[in-house]
Structures are given as structure tokens and as C-alpha cells.
């Protein structure tokens, strides 16, 4: 039990744990102190000064987020001095902010807007500084738009990029009035190490960082009668979308989402979970092949550990940061791109459609997917495999625009052919999910038995620890896999690129000898993705993860190789995993990139 101290907040004496910040102590006692630069995911900066409070006996005010409570402290959060100062600070922020709210993408979900609406500052007669500065909007990235005129310099994005992702694409440049958030040599976002993960967007309180949206393009495609518009939905979207549309955090809205997509006018609504299952078939086979090549054939060109390749943020990260280690990546495309390649080949063939008329849209919890879909190598169908990528947030906007009362919708099912999935596909949305799904299938493939975990739940790879490890000992394998007998399959899972860096560095230094590693760029995996509803916090991600695993438990089939549509596609179209057609459509290559 930690030591407790007594403090007084607005006249009420409370006992709190020693070391608690004033902000936290106030929240515990039901006093709300407004914040802007503070974020639960990040270290304390104390630079916006919105959270200032008065401490008896001190002339200066203290930032509540950055000041620890001390025994006997008498704190006032709403004194004359505090109120006046806070209003001044908000007014200052507004004077430097391009407060053109009606033309802002974040209109309605902006922390600065909320603050100013609470404080009702009607006499804003400070000089408008925005006009005096020459701001340009960086729209070069396919994923992220950066508008400095809306930036409040809270540095949440800078801390996100450094602390959560270890990328440092965004940093502070210049000082004084010219101080701004910038990139290396002020290059455009698509010319720097940015992985397009979008975590900066998720943590930005204003509209300074937003996703590049393709809402109008998709509406146009739907309206075009000559086009056949199909849509896929990623696993994590179904546990996040509800938050934007009136549901509580962690609500599963799969059926309603499908119904809404049909009402929006998509010609076919299918599931990325299907290609997630397909990924397991391909990636699992690739892993076993590699194990054989290394352990039996001793092929020096084949690299272990093999790492997953589903997360486009992770892919761009390794291309920039560890270009010598691209051979470790699985050659499998991500589920989105597998779906895209199949949509304009398999689906077109089975439905007798001209692939030229197909517009393939995907709904993703991710902004890096926008970049991935635009990669030049993603044209294996002969066309651009995925035409438009929308985030969870953009889908919510479309649903609202269409006047759909989401809460009242009846559940519907995905369309056939590429709409069937298993629990293994669903858990792709959570950190550790790809690993768990792969182990469920691979272990059964090798031994003919279920993985030795109760109810198929491989709990060591679940949860929110940054780096998780698991190992499974292979005993009594089938004769084809006899060479694996007695081998302990060592796996690791890392989420958040700062954790990916830790694992990569331990591999390079030779400290670890894993066989298979799952890397996800975003904290919590896709459910905490850069395209998911804002705000995000550890608590919110935990709830979304619970929803993902509940969805898995509720599925009748929970192993990828049991998916009847997967069995069908191999029978009718692909042949076998890692076969020639798979190789052409479902696998890819990577590009070494420079840091600067």
C-alpha cells in the first residue's frame, strides 16, 4: 500500500496516494480540470498551460498535469485568478489558430473547439496571428494531411511519434513565434520516415493532422451505375465503428455495419476477415516451408525469424529503419491487398464481371492502408487492386451523411464468396491475433491436434504488454513434419513501433532466437489503429480488445483452415497455398528505403 497524503481541493479535504498529480487527484475527487496537451498515452509535457490551478501560498499558478500533490496542499481549480488566466490562454490559442471551424474536417470533434465553447470567450480582440504567417498545407502524403495553421503546438503528435512509435518523423523546429511541428528539413510527409500509421492523427486535439479522406470519391463511385462497387471491412472496424455512432466503447456492431454498407449502396459487402483466414493459410505454409528449409536443408538464403507483413505501418518502418532485414518479412500481402487482388480476378470471374468495372473499396482502422493500396506493386490483378481506402471514421461520416439511424438497423450477413470468416480472422484486429490464428492452424497442420490451450485461447499472446513471448513444443507430429519433433517453436508479438524496435534490436544483437514474430505498428494492434475513432486511450483499447475476443468466441468456426470459402477458393481458383497463382496474386516484394 503506497503512502497517502492529505490535500484540499476547492475546500474539500481528500486523501490520495503520494506522487499523484494534481490533475489525477482532482479527477479522482470528481473535479474536472480542462486539458489540451495532456494525453493518457503520453508523457506529461505541461506546455499548453490550460490546466493551471492555484495553490495557496504560491503567487504563480501550477500546471495540474505536471505538478505532484504535496502533503497539506490547498488547491483551487476555479478561482478568479485561475479562470482569468485560463480564458486568456484559450484566447491566445485561438488567436494563433485558424479557427475556420465550418471548413474543418475535425469540426465537431475538436478539443480546442470544446474548450472554447465551454468558456464562451465572446470578446476575442487579440490580433489574429494566423494571417501574419505563411502556412502551407502538406497534402502530399496519401494518408495524412498536415495543416500547421490549425496546430496548437501541444506536441502530442511529436510525443506520439517518438514515444509510441519511435519513428520521430514529426519533431519541433524553430523557436519563438516561428516554432512549429515539422519534419526532417521540412520535407513533405511522404518524403520522410513517416510510416503513415496515423497515430499522430489519433492524438491530435485539433484538425492540424487529419487523414486524407476519399469520401466523395466513394460516393461518386456508388452513384456511377456502370461501376460495380464492392467493399471489404477489416476485423477491427466492427469493434470501433459503434463509438462514432452512439454505442458504448467496445460494442460489436458487425451486423449493423453490414446493413449500413448495403444501405449506402455498395453492390457487395464482403469481409477482410476472409482474406485474413487466407493469410493464415499462406503465411502458415510459408513459415513451415521456411522452417524446413532452415532446419533440414540448411539453406543459408532463407531467414528466420519470419515476421508478419499484415501491418503496412510496420512494413514501411522496417523498409526505412532495417532495410537489410527485409528477407525476414513474410512475402504475404496484407489481407486488404489479398482481397483487392482477388476482387478483380476470382470475384470477377465467379460473378462474370468485367474487372474494369469493379471499384474495390476497403474500410480499415488504418491510415497506412491508404498508402499501401497506392504502392506501385499492388496491381497484380492487372488493375489497381484496392481503389479507395476509408478509415472507420470516414465510414461513420458516410453513414451519418446518408441519414441512417445506425442504432435501429437490423443485423445483416456478409455476401457470399468472400464474406465468410472464422474467429481466427477476427482476432487479426488485436495485438497477438495473427500469431494466435497462425498457431491454431499451424499446430493442427503439423500434429493433427488442436493447440494445447483451453478452448483454443492462446492467452500468452493476448493482452497489452508491449512485447509478448510464447513458445509451443511440438510433440508427435505427423510424418510429413517429423523434422519438427521436439522443437520448441518460439514466438514473439510486438505492437507499437517502439516495441518493434526493441525486438528488432534484440534480433540483430543476437540476444533472441525466435522463429516467428508478429509486428503491429499501432498500440493494441489494429483496434488501436490510426483510422479508429478518436479519442483513444489504454482503457478504450482494452475494451475494443475484449470485444474482438468476444466476437471470436461467438464464431462457430475458429480456425482459418475450417473456413468453407477458403476451402472453396483453393479448390476452384488458387490450387494450393504458396502455389503458382497464390505466388502471383497473394505475395509481394519489399523496397529498401532511406531514412533521409
Amino acid at each position: 500500500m503506497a503512502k497517502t497524503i492529505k490535500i484540499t481541493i476547492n475546500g474539500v479535504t481528500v486523501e490520495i496516494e503520494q506522487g499523484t498529480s494534481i490533475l489525477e487527484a482532482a479527477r479522482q475527487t470528481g473535479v474536472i480540470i480542462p486539458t489540451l496537451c495532456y494525453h493518457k498515452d503520453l508523457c506529461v509535457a505541461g506546455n499548453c498551460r490550460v490546466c493551471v490551478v492555484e495553490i495557496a501560498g504560491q503567487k504563480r499558478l501550477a500546471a495540474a498535469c505536471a505538478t505532484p500533490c504535496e502533503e497539506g496542499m490547498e488547491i483551487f481549480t476555479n478561482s478568479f485568478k485561475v479562470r482569468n488566466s485560463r480564458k486568456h490562454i484559450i484566447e491566445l490559442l485561438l488567436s494563433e489558430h485558424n479557427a475556420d471551424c465550418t471548413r474543418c474536417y475535425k469540426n465537431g470533434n475538436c478539443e480546442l473547439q470544446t474548450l472554447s465553447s465551454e468558456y464562451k470567450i465572446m470578446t476575442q480582440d487579440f490580433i489574429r496571428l494566423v494571417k501574419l504567417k505563411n502556412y502551407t498545407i502538406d497534402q502530399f502524403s496519401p494518408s495524412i494531411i498536415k495543416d500547421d495553421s490549425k496546430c496548437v503546438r501541444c506536441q502530442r503528435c511529436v510525443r506520439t511519434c517518438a514515444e509510441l512509435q519511435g519513428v520521430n518523423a514529426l519533431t519541433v523546429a524553430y523557436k519563438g513565434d516561428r516554432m512549429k511541428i515539422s519534419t526532417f528539413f521540412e520535407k513533405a510527409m511522404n518524403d520522410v520516415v513517416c510510416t503513415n500509421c496515423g497515430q499522430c492523427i489519433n492524438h491530435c486535439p485539433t484538425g492540424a493532422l487529419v487523414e486524407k479522406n476519399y469520401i466523395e470519391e466513394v460516393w461518386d463511385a456508388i452513384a456511377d451505375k456502370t461501376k460495380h462497387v464492392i467493399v471489404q471491412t477489416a476485423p477491427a472496424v466492427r469493434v470501433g465503428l459503434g463509438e462514432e455512432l452512439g454505442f458504448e466503447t467496445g460494442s460489436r456492431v458487425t451486423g449493423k455495419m453490414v446493413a449500413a454498407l448495403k444501405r449506402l449502396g455498395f453492390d457487395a459487402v464482403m469481409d477482410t476477415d476472409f482474406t485474413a483466414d487466407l493469410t493464415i493459410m499462406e503465411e502458415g505454409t510459408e513459415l513451415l516451408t521456411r522452417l524446413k528449409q532452415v532446419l533440414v536443408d540448411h539453406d543459408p538464403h532463407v531467414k528466420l525469424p519470419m515476421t508478419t507483413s499484415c501491418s503496412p505501418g510496420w512494413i514501411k518502418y522496417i523498409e526505412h529503419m532495417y532495410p537489410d532485414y527485409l528477407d525476414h518479412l513474410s512475402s504475404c500481402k496484407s489481407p486488404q491487398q489479398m482481397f483487392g487482388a482477388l476482387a478483380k480476378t476470382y470475384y470477377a470471374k465467379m460473378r462474370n464481371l468485367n474487372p474494369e468495372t469493379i471499384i474495390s473499396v476497403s474500410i480499415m482502422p488504418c491510415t497506412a492502408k491508404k498508402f499501401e493500396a497506392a504502392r506501385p506493386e499492388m496491381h497484380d490483378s492487372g488493375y489497381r487492386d484496392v481503389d479507395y481506402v476509408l478509415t472507420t471514421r470516414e465510414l461513420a461520416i458516410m453513414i451519418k451523411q446518408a441519414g441512417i439511424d445506425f442504432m435501429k438497423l437490423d443485423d445483416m450477413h456478409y455476401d457470399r464468396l468472400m464474406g465468410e470468416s472464422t474467429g481466427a480472422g477476427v482476432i487479426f484486429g488485436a495485438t497477438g491475433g495473427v500469431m494466435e490464428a497462425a498457431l491454431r492452424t499451424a499446430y493442427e497442420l503439423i500434429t493433427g491436434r488442436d493447440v494445447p490451450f483451453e478452448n483454443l485461447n492462446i492467452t500468452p499472446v493476448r493482452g497489452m504488454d508491449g512485447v509478448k513471448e510464447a513458445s509451443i513444443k511440438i510433440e508427435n507430429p505427423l510424418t510429413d513434419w517429423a523434422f519438427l519433433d521436439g522443437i520448441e517453436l518460439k514466438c514473439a508479438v510486438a505492437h507499437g513501433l517502439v516495441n518493434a524496435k526493441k525486438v528488432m534490436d534484440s534480433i540483430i544483437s543476437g540476444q533472441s532466437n525466435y522463429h516467428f514474430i508478429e509486428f503491429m505498428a499501432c498500440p493494441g494492434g489494429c483496434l488501436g489503429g490510426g483510422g479508429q475513432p478518436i479519442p483513444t486511450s489504454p482503457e478504450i483499447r482494452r475494451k475494443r480488445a475484449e470485444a474482438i475476443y468476444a466476437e471470436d468466441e461467438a464464431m462457430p468456426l475458429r480456425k482459418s483452415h475450417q473456413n468453407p470459402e477458403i476451402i472453396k477458393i483453393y479448390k476452384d481458383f488458387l490450387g494450393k497455398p504458396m502455389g503458382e497463382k497464390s505466388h502471383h496474386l497473394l505475395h509481394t516484394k519489399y523496397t529498401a528505403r532511406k531514412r533521409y
Partner: protein
Amino acid sequence: MTTNYQLKRADFIFKNENDWKEVLSKNISHPPQKLINELISSELKGRGGAGFPTGLKWKLSAEAVDEIKYVICNADEGEPGTFKDREILSKVPFKVLTAMAICGHVIGAREGYIYLRGEYFFLRPELNKVISEFEYYCREINFDFTIRIFMGSGAYICGEETALFESMEGKRGEPRNKPPFPSSYGYMGKPTVINNVETLAHTYTIFKYGAKRFYDLGVQYSRGSKLFSVSGDTPKPGIYELELGMSLVDFVDEFGDGDTKAVQVGGASGFLVPRKRFNETAIGFQGKLTGISLPTGGSMMLFNSSRSMFNVLDNYLEFFREESCGQCTPCRVGCQQLLNGIKAVKRGEKNAQYLDKLLRLTETMQYTAKCGLGQSVANSFSSIVENFREEMIY
């Protein structure tokens, strides 16, 4: 209230008796507690401008438990109108090095750094020579202490102690949140004593002559002597060592050109005193009994009646607008608003009452800015605008 204190010259800092070896070997044989007591009884306060009691600073760091501690000499002399540290480092560097080593002995640090202002690059070669001679002697007497120079890059904010640590750690020079304070969490997160060049030079005096000799100078709350950098409209600009507690009227009698309209005490972040208040203003640290007493890092700028106070303020604000690190709102945006604001009033785009709004803004900046920079912009702004309001408007 007047202190009626005559101007008294002192001569300690630049008196070079070349006896640093004796001072060093004698003092490192004393127990740390004795030296701390000596410093505390001298009532020496930091000469960088903030005036924190030096003895207490050393005591807190000495009490902090850690294997590694640091002594840092803050030579990032950036306050406009201050040039005393440059002279100390070029004329009596051994005093500073000796004081650092004694501080190392007191708190248990084996490494010292001099954070040298970027513009003082020319001092570096000579200083390095002196340091190697000093370190050679330390090895001779078996005293483990090394000193390195760290070059600043020209940012005013890096004179703020925590921004200075950040800068030394290779990061952007931005002030940290306090607490924790440097005495427990300084450079590299280790307990650190950081003192101004002049403060260290004074400790040399104290360790050489004893606390009493120092304490006997000056007045209550403001003991000892201090270097003053005198500039502006004066027939004799330069550096002068004077006892603290003098009345500003005496100072102007001595240094003014007969037409002194106002004196800026403490540089851009200090206060402007108009002629009518010379009589009631003393130079020293504030205490209960001393009346209006202005602390200073030593900058004394004199302005005669040919100067426009609007231009003076405009110049200060330009400086702050550019030198704010930019991280906290009140300072970054506040400085821009103040500068643009007085210009707008001058041009008639805003009415005279707008100055009152700006005055209230400086109050907020004083209460809420993260570090001393933003907090002290109010000093020069309010003292100039309140005393020379007409010059701001017409």
C-alpha cells in the same frame, strides 16, 4: 522609502593573487558540511538574476543520494546588457574552476561542465588551456575532478537551467517542468549544482577570506558585492564591482550623463525605473524591509531623453518573441500579442485601452508561463507601459 546607501566600490572578483592552488588544496581538506555552513552564513545569493541562496543549493545537492553528480557553470550569458561573465572567464578563469572543484568536493561530484555561450567561442582555446593546467594540478594533489566545456548554440532560453540540461543532453533546449529541481534531478537526471559564473567567483572569495568578509559588504538580504555591466547613455560604460544595496539615485549620479530618463535594471527581463523613482529604488534582492529593491543579473542600461521608450520596448519584445522556446502558450503567443499589440496601438489600429488588456495579459504570462522567460516578460512590459504610456500611444 530610501535606503540612503552610498555607492561603494569593491574589488574582489578581478583581484588576481594567483593563489588558487592554496585555496583549492586548503578547502578540499575541509569537511563538506563546514564549507556549506560557511556559504550559508555568507548569505551569498545567485548572481545570475534569480537570487537563490547558493549555500542552500549546494546543501540540497550534497544531501541527494547518488553515485554520480554534476557541477555546472552556467556561462550562457545571454541577457541583453550583461557582459560580466565573459570578463571573469577571460581574466580570472582559475577562480571559477577552483570554485567548481570545491563544489564537486562538497556535493560529491567528479565531473564539471562549463556551458559556454555560443557567441563566446573565442574564449574556448584559452579556457581549454587553463582547464588542462587546472586538471594537471588536481591530479598532482590526487583530487579527482575533471572539467569540460560544452558550447551553447546561441539560444537565450538555454540559460534557463533545465533548458540548459536538455541542450547538453543533445535535445531541444526547452525548459522542463519543475519539480523535480536540479538538486535532485538535473543533468542526465542526476543531482546537479548549476551556478552562474559570477556566483562561483564569489564563492572563491568566501572560501579564501571567510564568510564574514563577504557578509560585511552590502545590506540586509543583499550581502556582498556584485559586478554590474553598465551600458547605454553613459560616459563610462564597463564593468564595475559595487556593493549591493545602493540607491539608484547614487548609481545614476555616478554613471549617468546628466540627462538620464530611465534605467533598465536586469536586462530585457528586468524592470525599467523612470527618473521619478530613482530615489526610492535600491539595487539588491527583495526582502521584507528594503522597500523597492530590484534584483539583477548585473545589467544596468541607462537611457537619456533622446530615447523613445516605445522603441526600447519594441526591441525587447522582438527579442522575447524570437527567443521564447515556443513550447508553452502564454510565452509563445503572449510575446507575439504584446509585440503586435503595441505596434497596433502606435499605428492607431487599436485604441489606447488595448494597452490595459495587454497589461492584464502580462499578468497571466507571469502566473502561468512554464519558466522564468515567459514569467519575466511582464517586468519590462508593465514597467515601461505604466511609466511611459504616452510614448506608447503618440
